Structure formats: C-alpha cells, structure tokens
C-alpha cells in the first residue's frame, strides 16, 4: 500500500509528492518499479487524485485506488485505514514520499511478523524511534524519543485486521505512529531509505539515489 493522499505542502512544488520528478520520472514510478513483483498494490489518493491515478495506471493498470477525501484534515492513519479496507492478511505500507532500497523492501516482504522499518535519522521532520536489542533481534519500543539517532521511516508491516480494529475504535484520527504506539514493541528492520518532505530532503534524496538508482531498474 502506497499512501499518496497528502498535499505535500512542505515541499512547496504545487503538486502532490507522488508526482514530483525524481531523475526524470514521477516519484510514484520508482515505487511501482520496486513493487513490480507484488500482485496486490493499493494506492491511497486524495490531493490531485485524478493525476495520481493517471500516472499509476500507466504503469500498473491493476492497481486498486482507495480515496481519502479528507486528506486535508486527517493524519496518515486515516489514509492507512482507507487503504486497508478489505485487506485479508498482512499489509505492507509505505508513504508516497519514501524511497526504500529495493533489497531492503524485499526483506520486508519476507518478514515473518509485524515489523517497522527504521533508518538513521536524516529527515527534517523525523518521527524518532527508540530501538532496543541487537544482532538482528531489535524492536521499536517508543516513538519520538530522541536519543538513538534512528527514525521510523513510515514503512510498516502489520495485519490489516489491526488497522481495521483501530479504525473501529477511532484510533485512526491522527498519525500512524500514534495508532501503533499501543502495539509496541514491534520488530525493527533497518532499511536504507530517504523521505522527501522538504526541499532539503529532496536534495539529499537525489544525492543518495544517484549512485544506487540501478537497483530500481
């Protein structure tokens, strides 16, 4: 599931981040290439929905689009809930402004249980993650507790039923990390990723991507 509902105001380009050009292609095209072996792709749309649908359909005519019409007044959890409706197993979700190294994403696909993707904090508006454990057995135990130098990337794998229950309990009004907090600890998987939230993030992401872009081809 790719969440592309937001307006992307902090990037200041006048288009939703899914359509922002990254090395000559819309950002969403990078996600879809990474997901070309995934059968069940859901894209949550809101701001500029018609344009996003058009861009996605050109590459994935079989994608399902879920609308978050309230994108301007809701947090990320509402979009996650919209995209999870009808999900029968685990859901792997990433925000439309996140570039994840495809090899690390594959590790997520193979993860045996709920997990969260963490990375060294580089984003301007990071959701910091407190992670405990070592040697491949690490877990996120808290959010927004600065100290470990790690951020939660927004990448997650959880049962769709967990999100469905959260929505039924009105726990999807804010951000996803707030919705997940009662369910911690969750396994942490370290991923190489860059989020594009501000112009500075965009520049850093392009610099990071340039030498490794072939992994998406």
């Amino acid at each position, binding site marked *: 599931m790719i969440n592309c509902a937001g307006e992307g105001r902090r990037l200041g380009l006048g288009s939703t981040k899914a359509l922002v050009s990254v090395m000559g292609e819309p950002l969403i095209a990078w996600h879809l290439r990474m997901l070309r072996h995934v059968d069940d792709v859901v894209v949550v749309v809101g701001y500029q929905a018609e344009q996003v*649908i058009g861009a996605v359909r050109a590459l994935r005519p079989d*994608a*399902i689009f*879920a609308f978050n019409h309230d994108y301007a007044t809701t947090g990320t959890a509402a979009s996650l809930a*919209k995209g999870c409706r*009808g999900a029968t197993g685990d859901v792997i979700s990433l925000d439309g402004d996140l570039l994840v190294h495809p090899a690390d994403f594959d590790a997520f696909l193979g993860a045996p249980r709920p997990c969260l993707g963490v990375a060294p904090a580089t984003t301007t508006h990071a959701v910091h993650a407190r992670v405990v454990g070592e040697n491949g057995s690490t877990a996120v135990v808290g959010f927004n507790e600065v100290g470990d130098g790690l951020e939660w990337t927004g990448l997650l794998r959880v049962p769709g039923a967990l999100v*469905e*229950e959260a929505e*039924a309990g009105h726990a999807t009004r804010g951000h996803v990390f707030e919705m997940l907090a009662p369910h911690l600890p969750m396994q942490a998987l370290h991923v190489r990723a860059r989020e594009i939230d501000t112009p500075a993030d965009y520049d850093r992401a392009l610099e990071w991507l340039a030498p490794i872009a072939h992994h998406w081809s």
Partner: protein
Amino acid sequence: MLKTLAYRGRPLAPTRTVERFLFDLDGTITRQEILPEIARAVGMQDEIAALTRRTMAGELPFESSLRRRVEILSQVPVSEVRRIVAGVEIDPHIADFLAAHRDRCTIVTGNLDAWIADLVATLGVDCRSSTALVLGDRLIGLTSVLDKAVVAADYDGAICVVGDGYNDLGLMAAADYGVAYGGVHAPAPGLYDVASHAIFDPERLCELLSAL
C-alpha cells in the same frame, strides 16, 4: 453480516461487511454499452452514441436522455433487441462474482426490463431497472425511469455500489463503499469525488469485493 478478526491470538472487534452489492449493468457487468449495441445493429449508432456519451459525462439528465434514446430505438422489435442484447459480451470475472454471491447482489440499471430480461435471467440475480410497456413485439413507451439514487434507501445493511456513469453518482454517494469502475472506459467525471475506490481491472475488482 459480521466478520471476526484476530491479532496475536486474541479476537478483535467484529466489523460490519457488505450486505448488498449494487452493480451497474452497461459497461460494468457488460463489456459494451447496450443501447449503442442495439443502435449499431439497426444503423442508428451515431445519434445514440452521441446521446450516450453526453449522458455518461453528466451533460444530459439521464431521464430525458433515456426517453429520447428509447424513442429512437422503440421502432426495433423487442425480440430483435433481446437477440442483440444476448450477444453483448459479459465480463467473466464479474459474472463469476455474481454467481458466487447471488443472494447479496442486485443489478441497478436505467435500462429497460423488456430489453434486458433474458440477460438478467442468465446472470441469475435480482434486478432493479426502468420499465416499459410492450404490446406484442412492440415497445409502446416507458412506464418508469429508475432513479438509482433512491435505491440505497431500500437496504438496511452496508451497501457497495459498482458503476461507471454519472447516473451512478447519487447511489454511490449514499453507499458505504463505492467503486468507480473503469473496466470499459474511464469512470464519469464526478465519481471520484464520492467513491471509496477506483478500479480498472475486473479481476482486482472482484478480489476487493470478495473481501468486503
């Protein structure tokens, strides 16, 4: 209908699932719009196609457009129309879904009962449609034009609407789930504003519906 969820071995709160699926017929269950197919068979395709296109786009009120189209096509014997309708291609994935969920599915169409009766019987599901008076093999005139939007009020449980045209908008806006479906052509303008989902692939459509 309720389904029970579980996470980490404990039951989660049951959530409501769809009790009734309401399907548009033309261009949703069928792979072609039916009235243009009738028109083509009798050489009146240009006028009907223009009316259909403008109606789908919401430029003409559905009722007046349907009345005009029926007036044009009423010169065709009903038996001939039914023969043409019998040859319209049905999407096999949607037909399978209808067959598997017969008691939860209803076709909601502005099309005429007299023209689509055989097709509906083949699909084996309940149908709400416009109605017409037929004498012998001749269609005399419309007796009612279905306002799709009012159909939602007839169902107590959660409903899911699947459609592609502007005349699906009111019903979709009243539904718990609304799928703007683009299996044959892009959904009409405005449907995205009220839909919960947009889908362009019939197999994926049926996967989602099966999970609701």
